């Protein structure tokens, strides 16, 4: 049953993916600017321009380009950077993706920790002063302008207190041996203590910035879902059986509230990435966000397209993952 469900769910990602890819293709075609000019410069003679156009396949009609684009993707080929060094896009992405992943994961953990505790407690003390304060926290963080917040943290903790680095991911020569590309994980795996602390110190401010930004949404989601669940009959029934309040709240209620929260988290992934773009630029974090922004500015056609495709793929897989977890957590799906 579960397996059938998962297979079906996995197949469901195909149309979503296809639509995303098509949208990306269309958007990329209307981007202003001539990618060929970006490659050959302004002085190139026509025959050079022509040959480059042909090499990029841009002389083909759109539907052929579209088919080529899809079939390249199918082969896992995201193309090569259009400008400068013509590096394979996937290599470039892989240079930056672990950074974003590391930032996202740690920010996510920060926000989940804050979100779950504050959300649950706010729901328990519904309508109290405490609840009002936490609600305000949730609203405020949602309205937070990341660059501003990040700059303030940088000023306080890096420039004035000199406690933490201003930006970047790690100091030169401190990189752990590459295994996963996640510095914290790699330095643990290679038992490289200095690297671990160095990477950690760089991670603190960005993940707090991003984590706090997302946490408000979590606080609100957890709170409202907990409110809902705490009002459910089975919670009253559990209490009526004499189950201690903390067990009721953190075992019975939270687990149930977690299922909608999980879906929410899947959707919040987009928010996380959006926040990551701004956080990364603020903290010179060498991740996908800064990378993508730069390449958009340089009109690196294929790289932007490849990166966006990659992000789309990522989003689709995350939502797949969320649904799998959902199915795993919810017996109503597991044992249908």
């Amino acid at each position: 049953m579960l397996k059938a469900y998962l297979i079906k769910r996995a197949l469901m990602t195909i149309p979503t993916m296809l639509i995303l890819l098509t949208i990306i293709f269309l958007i990329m075609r209307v981007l202003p600017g001539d990618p060929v000019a970006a490659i050959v410069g302004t002085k190139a003679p026509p025959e050079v321009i022509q040959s480059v156009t042909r090499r990029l396949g841009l002389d083909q009609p759109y539907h052929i380009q579209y088919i080529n684009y899809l079939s390249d993707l199918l082969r896992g080929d995201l193309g090569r950077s259009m400008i400068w060094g013509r590096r394979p896009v996937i290599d470039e992405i892989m240079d930056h993706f672990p950074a974003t992943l590391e930032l996202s994961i740690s920010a996510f953990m920060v926000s989940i920790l804050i979100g779950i505790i504050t959300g649950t407690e706010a729901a328990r003390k519904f309508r109290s002063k405490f609840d009002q304060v936490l609600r305000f926290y949730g609203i405020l963080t949602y309205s937070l302008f990341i660059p501003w917040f990040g700059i303030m943290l940088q000023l306080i903790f890096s420039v004035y207190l000199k406690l933490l680095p201003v930006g970047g991911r790690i100091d030169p020569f401190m990189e752990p041996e590459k295994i996963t590309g996640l510095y914290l994980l790699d330095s643990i795996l290679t038992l490289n203590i200095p690297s671990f602390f160095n990477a950690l110190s760089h991670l603190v401010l960005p993940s707090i910035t991003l984590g706090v930004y997302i946490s408000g949404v979590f606080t609100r989601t957890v709170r409202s879902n907990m409110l809902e669940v705490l009002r459910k009959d089975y919670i009253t029934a559990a209490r009526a059986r004499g189950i201690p309040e903390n067990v009721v709240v953190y075992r019975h209620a939270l687990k149930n509230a977690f299922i909608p929260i999980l879906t929410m988290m899947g959707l919040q992934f987009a928010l996380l990435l959006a926040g990551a773009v701004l956080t990364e630029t603020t903290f010179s974090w060498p991740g996908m966000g800064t990378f993508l922004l730069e390449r958009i500015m340089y009109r690196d056609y294929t790289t932007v397209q490849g990166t966006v495709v990659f992000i789309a793929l990522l989003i689709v897989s995350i939502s797949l993952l969320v649904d799998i977890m959902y199915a795993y957590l919810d017996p109503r799906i597991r044992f249908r």
Partner: protein
Amino acid sequence: MKCLLNINELKVYYFTRRGVVRAVDGVSLNISRGEVLGLVGESGSGKSTLGISLLGLVPPPGRVVGGSIIFDGIELTKLSADEFAKIRGRRISMIFQDPMTSLNPLMKIGDHLMETIMIHENIPKNEARERSIKALEEVGIPPERFNDYPHQFSGGMRQRVMIALAILLNPDLIIADEPTTALDVIVQAQIIDLLNNLRKQYNMSILLISHDIGVVSEIADKIAVMYAGHLVEMADVDVIFKDPLHPYTSALLRAVPLIESKYEKLYYIPGSPPDLVNPPKGCRFHPRCPHATDICRTREPRTVSIEDHIVKCWMYCDTYE
């Protein structure tokens, strides 16, 4: 029979934005050991509130604002949260109206039972398991369904599980709040029979809450009738049916279509149930009562007891001023 539960002048109010809802407003009643008391009344008359207050679980913004509940010599309204938790499930347990939503959808049936036992009693896991299986068998659920999830059960089966949970620790009192309302007639009859059997077997007291006087009459020894937060009448089942004193009780009995009664015209109670934020002055039933007099409109009637028959109506207060 020994008195197990003594409720005296209990007041439970909900402090809502609209105003104070006087859901239970000065109710007194007793339940003896082994006795089944049926509590009936229209929707919103405060039956559930009364029931849930016995477990100290009145949901916010509700609060017990007055009166006392003495259960087996313990004053429940004064208990701390921890002390109350020890009584819940172990000495007083509860069956809820909607079996579809009263079980945690993420927990196996068996785990519900085992968790309850292990919280109240310090016993090894496998013993808890054995006892849980026994309780399930008792309500007619085969042991092989121990590891199933609630959604795999039908409504009637779930209500059986709820009953198993309620009798699990052999409590003195079970509060059953509309245990059959959500079920079909045939299943309802099955559950009623089950409750009847269990009650004989364990000699438990039951507070059976229902808006359906027919259902109540199948099990209860005594019937209490609530109207708008007041207890208006209480007597033995037979007495209530044969000789209802309060105008509301008799109106209620005549308003429901009964299978025995032949083609006679149904009676209906004029008006609609009062808003408990602003209940009518005096007797709360007076706007709908055919016998209402001036005093009914101004002063709340006393509760009088004529032998074992309690009624709250001016018609039976010998002395008005």
